[in-house]
């Protein structure tokens, strides 16, 4: 049985904000199916009494003193922006229908 359908891949692509052509969806659905079969095995190894590890170092709430240090100038911060306007990032319309 397929672990993942083409429709599911299309849904995931929407969640990940990646536009995909019909060809890409077909291809990816079959590849992901293979990969998921290969990684399925983690479920047989992992018993519930084993605690999960998210990180190799046992660190907790690392903080530093709240001291003001020099940071990027507005020009530097905007230097890689696709579009900018008066010290601001200029982006396409984010609310409602674009005209």
């Amino acid at each position, binding site marked *: 049985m397929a672990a993942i359908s083409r429709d599911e891949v299309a849904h995931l692509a929407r*969640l990940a904000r*990646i536009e995909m052509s019909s060809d890409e969806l077909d291809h990816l659905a079959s590849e992901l199916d293979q990969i998921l079969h290969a990684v399925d095995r983690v479920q047989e190894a992992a018993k519930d009494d084993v*605690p999960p590890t998210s990180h*190799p170092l046992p660190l907790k709430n690392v903080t530093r003193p709240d001291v003001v240090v020099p940071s990027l100038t507005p020009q530097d911060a905007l*230097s890689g922006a696709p579009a900018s306007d008066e010290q601001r990032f200029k982006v396409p319309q984010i609310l409602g229908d674009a005209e």
Partner: protein
Amino acid sequence: MASALANKDVSAVDLANEHFARIEEVDGEVHAFLYLDKEGALSQAKSVDEKRAAGEKLGPLAGVPLALKDVMAQKGIPTTCGSKILEGWRPPYDATVVTRLKDAGIVILGKTNMDEFAMGSSTENSAYGPTHNPWDLTRIPGGSGGGSSASLAAFEAPLAIGTDTGGSIRQPAAVTGTVGVKPTYGAVSRYGLVAFSSSLDQAGPCARTVLDAALLHEVIAGHDGKDSSSINAPVPAVVAAAKKLDVKGMKIGVIKELGGEGFQKGVSERFNEALEELVKAGAEIVEVSCPNFEYALAAYYLIAPSEASSNLARFDSMRYGLRVGDDGSRGAEEVMSLTRQAGFGKEVKRRIILGTYALSSGYYDAYYGSAQRVRTLIMRDYEAAFAKADVLVSPTAPTTAFKIGEKADDPVAMYLNDIATIPVNMAGIGGMSLPCGLAPEDGLPVGFQIMSPAMKDDLMYQVGGTLEAALNAKWGSTLISQAPALGAK
């Protein structure tokens, strides 16, 4: 090279120029570099020469050239991470590693090729074309840091920086006959390193000898307040360890599960011969078992894509990088989706979608949760193994370099190449690869992997330095000196 510089037999400017000439001669065939910074390199070299002439005390690597993996931000220098989505981006700041290299007087020649966002084992996933292995130009130089390893093997640079999430320093070192070290997680700052999988990523030194790697290790390692996961403890004395050349009484554990079936015959042969050298040098070999390693690959291919799907959300076309389709008629989300379609390559999309799936509700426990439990089991395996041995060893990769294109259409087969390197990242311990000979069947380099417990990186340098000296004595020369000549055409 460093001593020639210190004795003023050669100037840093001459050395940089010689390397640029070599790059010009052979990089058409190898394609290790994505960008060369002649101006910056020569100005740094000139400043080192002036300081030396003025009698200033300089670090041991001052004036030595280096190739930087294109995953590191360097101020004003194009940083692409092998991706179209960052084409033309010039970071407004230096990564901490870059700051430390510059402070040490190291001359950064340019940026090296890599699999897009460090996702791959062959450098074929670079949006800018593959890099070729200097030992055989039809073969892969490993990945993701194939540009860095190839630049060393082709004598385009004596030092390089790599990053290792699942083997991206060690596997390229193995297949190019060079040395690559993944330090303990947190030993080298991740500030300015384009993130792939934050709990696994670790930068480290690449070189042609163990001692060179150790010298570079001491330059880049150490606590950094800009990376909250950076270890706040003294850096182990890896240079002193690399010079010890003594393993008498040390226990070296061979991991049973990382050998035998699935490993190329010549790889196993050379690995076993290297073990004999360590025995001759006075070490004791013990066999250890890590039964949960068989699940490591599966767990890695859930954890790394999960973290990547989140990390790569930052490439949203709003603040930097590519923007596609912004013609005034489209909203931000549509522009974002079109940009990510055009900017990301196949493997990156595959992993983002896989990660999004593994983290989505309903599947989180079964996939990401289970993978994290496997991570605990792997750490326990290592703990038990290190109770029996000072360091652990295995072949670095199951095979020598494969042909370009050979595994490009089979992601699962490609992933299998990382089987021996991935457990190290999962546990956050140190790992090194050094050359242990050429496989008789194909004449290509084989890598020997040494793993040391977290925070004890000096132990792998001690064993690596000793093994390297013993092998060089046996061969009568270094392995890399047997590499075929390039640029003869």
